[in-house]
């Protein structure tokens, strides 16, 4: 059997990849997918720990996260479309009308 630690390390790696992607990628859709990657890394962590503790809380949590992520995707994609309609681009670097 694969030890729990491996799952946790994989989840941590995925989470860091997602975080890095949010910070450096310029395409809004890729940024958005990186956020989803972070949430799925969290799901993997929850499931690994649920296996370790032998209780169902982690499973329930993962389902809630999936449901919320779906709601978030609906709003997020709608906003990306609104951005594209008003500017004709989804490049994060171009989305900065407001200056300090």
């Amino acid at each position, binding site marked *: 059997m694969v030890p729990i630690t491996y799952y*946790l390390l994989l989840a941590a790696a995925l*989470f860091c990849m*997602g*975080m890095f992607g*949010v910070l450096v990628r310029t395409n*809004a859709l890729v*940024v*958005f997918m990186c*956020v989803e990657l*972070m*949430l799925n*890394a*969290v799901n993997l*962590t*929850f499931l*690994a*720990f649920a296996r*370790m*503790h032998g*209780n169902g*809380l*982690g499973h*329930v*949590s993962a389902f*809630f*996260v999936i449901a*919320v992520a779906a*709601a*978030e995707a609906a*709003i*997020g994609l*709608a*906003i*990306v479309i*609104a*951005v594209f*309609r*008003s*500017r004709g681009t989804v490049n994060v670097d171009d*989305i*900065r*009308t*407001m200056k*300090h």
Partner: protein
Amino acid sequence: MNLPNITLADFLPMLPAIIMVVAASVLLLSEVFLSATASRGYQAVLTVVAAAASGAVAVGLMFEPPQEVFLGFGVLDPFSSFLTLVVSVGLALAALSAVGFLRRRGAERGEFYALMLFASAGMSLLAMSSEFITIFVNIEVLSIATYALTAYLRRGTRPSEAGFKYFILGAFSSAVLLYGTALLYGATGTTKLNDMAGPLQQALATSPALVYVGAVLIAAGFAFKVAAVPFHMWTPDVYEGAPTPVTALMSAGVKAAAFASLVRVFVTVGKGMDPKLPLMLFATLALLTMVAGNLMAIPQRNVKRMLAYSSIAHAGYLLLGVAALFVAAPGEHFRLLSASSLSGGTPLDVARSDALRGILYYLLAYTFSATGAFAMVSALERREDEEKGTAWDLERFAGLAQRRPGWAFAMAAFMLSLGGIPPTVGFMSKLLIFQAAIDVGLVGLTVVAVLSSAAGAYYYLRVVVYMFMHPIPEGAQPLERNWGTEAALVIATVAVVLLGILPGHVTDWLAQAGTLFGQ
């Protein structure tokens, strides 16, 4: 399989949120039967009535003893009920200022008010949540509604840009917070805050790294939500780009609910940890946030953006109150500022309960002053100037005292209150927080807070100077009056002044609002 035993009594504490959700559903459904040109004046009225009803129920619930509801997934205590009251106030004032704002843009729709109500229901429930998944779901309920509200005027470039930035950073911070809760679940095997104390002690002995990393990630997630420096980058752009009534709701309700949840989580998670760690964490955040927020606000000529930076600074003062909760022993200057006798409990308990009370009072004070100020900003801005970015320039306020003396007086009251100048509620609330911080010995940090709030007076008073001492600019457009905005201004001004000059009764009554379940 045994089903959990949930009775009607479990739903009573959620009544404020239920009222908001029902009102929101009515608004959404009624929109189906309305033609495009039908009068929609009732929508704001319904929202305000729902907010008033929720606030009244919350006041009633404040006298209930602290108790667990829904099998420990939530708690009802005076702290959460008071927060629901703050949220209701913010919602009512934001909805009133939205009437004229939406009508001028021809964007009056039931969805706008329904989203505001859904967001407020999420805030009210977040203040009650005492389990990590419940907290996460409620954060998302309020955030998703606020993302949609931010991008509500979707044809402009600014609202969609603000909505996009808010969405990405909001989702990012939620994920960070959630990863922290996953690690804490791994360390303790439970997600309920009330069951966590015991397992947390064991986990600190066996796998401290998991607990500490989890706690830091949760703190970072909340720091994003309350706009603490260095997690504040989104705030100015989002506050500036969002429709002004939405900015009012964000600065009041979202921040208040996030602070309530932050306090509830860390009072539990901080137990058993070396108290120096949360203290250091929040003291550092408070220091950075106070100083940076005020410094960045000073050069702003755009009043809306200035208020955004000022909301960062105010988060700093609130974080000072949060830091005061984690001091292990009362300082040597205990009761330096107030001679009142100890009302039971050790000095440390009294100081902590004072700090909690200070945080709550500050949230109420900030809600009245900030939503009032944003209502004023929304009354002065014109749609045509929005894309040019001059809609919120200080020039807009020039000579306001001659054009609309009442408005200028109200705005002056809000500015004095935000700056912490007596005789306003802003002064009293700052005093309560600073007093609690000195009582627990955070003297140095409090001195920084006082100095930075003195620096803050500069940019607040500049608005007052423009209103009262500058001439009316040439070619100024006539100012439109609207019953909603004026009602919001009157309510907020009366509250700011009254709560500032008769704080005795209110603070006595508030003394019990500092009661947190399990404390």
